[in-house]
C-alpha cells in the first residue's frame, strides 16, 4: 500500500517545493530528505508538513513525529498510508 504512494509523494515534494529541473524518478525513495540526501532545508521541511495535509489530509502533530516521517520518501509514504483518510 505505502509503496504505491511513493510516486505520489515524490511528485508532491516537487510540486510543493517548486523544485525545477527534477523529475520524480530522480528522487531516491530511501535517501534522507535533508542534509546530504535531497538537500532540503528548514523551510522545505515545514512546507512539506503543509503539503501533506493539503494533498493527503495527514497531519504531522509534533517535531518527534516529524523527525521520523521526514526521514525519507518511503517513511513519508508509510506514514500517509497509516494515517491517511
Amino acid at each position, binding site marked *: 500500500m505505502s509503496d504505491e504512494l511513493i510516486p505520489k509523494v515524490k511528485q508532491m515534494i516537487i510540486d510543493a*517545493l*517548486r*523544485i*525545477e529541473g527534477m523529475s520524480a524518478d530522480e528522487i531516491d525513495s530511501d535517501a534522507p530528505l*535533508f542534509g546530504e540526501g535531497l538537500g532540503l*532545508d*528548514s*523551510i*522545505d*521541511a*515545514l*512546507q512539506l*508538513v*503543509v503539503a501533506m*495535509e493539503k494533498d493527503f489530509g495527514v*497531519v*504531522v*502533530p*509534533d*517535531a518527534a513525529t*516529524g*523527525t521520523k516521517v*521526514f526521514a525519507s520518501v518511503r517513511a513519508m509514504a508509510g506514514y500517509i498510508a497509516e494515517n491517511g483518510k
Partner: protein
Amino acid sequence: MSLYSSLNLFFIKQFTMLVPRWLHAPFALFWGTLFYLLTPRQRRGMRANLRIVTGRRQVERLLIASYYKYARNWCDVMLMIQLRGDRLQALIGQRSSGQPLEDALAKGSGAILISPHFGNWELGGLGLADLGYKLNVMTFPEPDEKVNQQREQVRAERGIGVIYVDRHDTSPLAVIEAVNALRRNEIICLIGDRDGSSNTVQLDFFGQPTDIPVGAAYLAMATGAPVLPVFVPLLPDGRYATLMDEPIFFQSSHGHHRQSIKAGMEQLVAVFERYIRQYPDQWYNFFDFWADTSRKKRIADE
C-alpha cells in the same frame, strides 16, 4: 535582581487587588524609581540601549520613564488577568484598523502577530482572545517554573494555546505545532526582537549589526500566512493603544529562502524601529541589548 519572578508577580497581583487603578501611577513611580536605584546593571544596559535608539547622550529622564512605565505595565498585566469583557476592553483607548488580520483570516491562512518587547504586549493577546479570536502564544519557557504555570493558567482560562519552543532545538520541525495552528486558521503571537535561538539572521537594527530571530519568517514561508507587526504602547491618559501595521508577506522559492527571509525581515525590523523611535521608553530590554548580542555571538563563534 530578577524583575520577572513569581514572587514579584505575586506581590503585584495582591497590590492590584487592593488598590484602585487610578492610584497605580504614583505607586509605579515609587517602585519604578526604587528599581532604577537598585538595579545598576539593568540600568546601565537600558541606558546604553536608549542612547543608541535616540542618538542622544542624555537619556536619564527616558530611562526613569522606562522603569516607571514597566512598573505600570506589570500592574496592568496582573490587573487585566482578573478582567473580562468591557472592563478589559476599557483599558484600550485607541485601536488601529484590524483589517489586515480580518483579511488574513478570511483567506484561511492564519496570521502571525509579532511584537518586539514593547509596551503591554500581553494586553494585545488577552484583548484579542476576549473578542473571540483563537490565539496561540509561541514562547520560550521562563526559568521560573511558577511563572510558566501562572501564564499557562491565565491563558488556558481564555482559550489561548501555548506553544513552547526549545531555544536549543535546531531542528526545522521545532515549530511544527505553530504551522499546524496556522493551517487551522488560528493566530500565532510571538515576540521577535531578541536573539534567543540558533535560528537568526544578522540585520542592521538601529545602525547596529543584530541577530534577529527568524521563526516568524519560517512560519510565514511555510504556510503563506502574513506577518503582522503589532504594538501596544501606554498612552498619556493611562490607557493603551493597540496598533497593527501593514502585513509583511514572505515569498518562498526553493533554493532562494535566505534572500526571501532577509528581505522580509528587513521590512519587519524597519517597522520595529519606527515604533521604538516613537516610544523609546517602552522598549523593555533591561540589559545591554547590543553588547550582550555581540558577546553571545562571539561565544557561539568560538
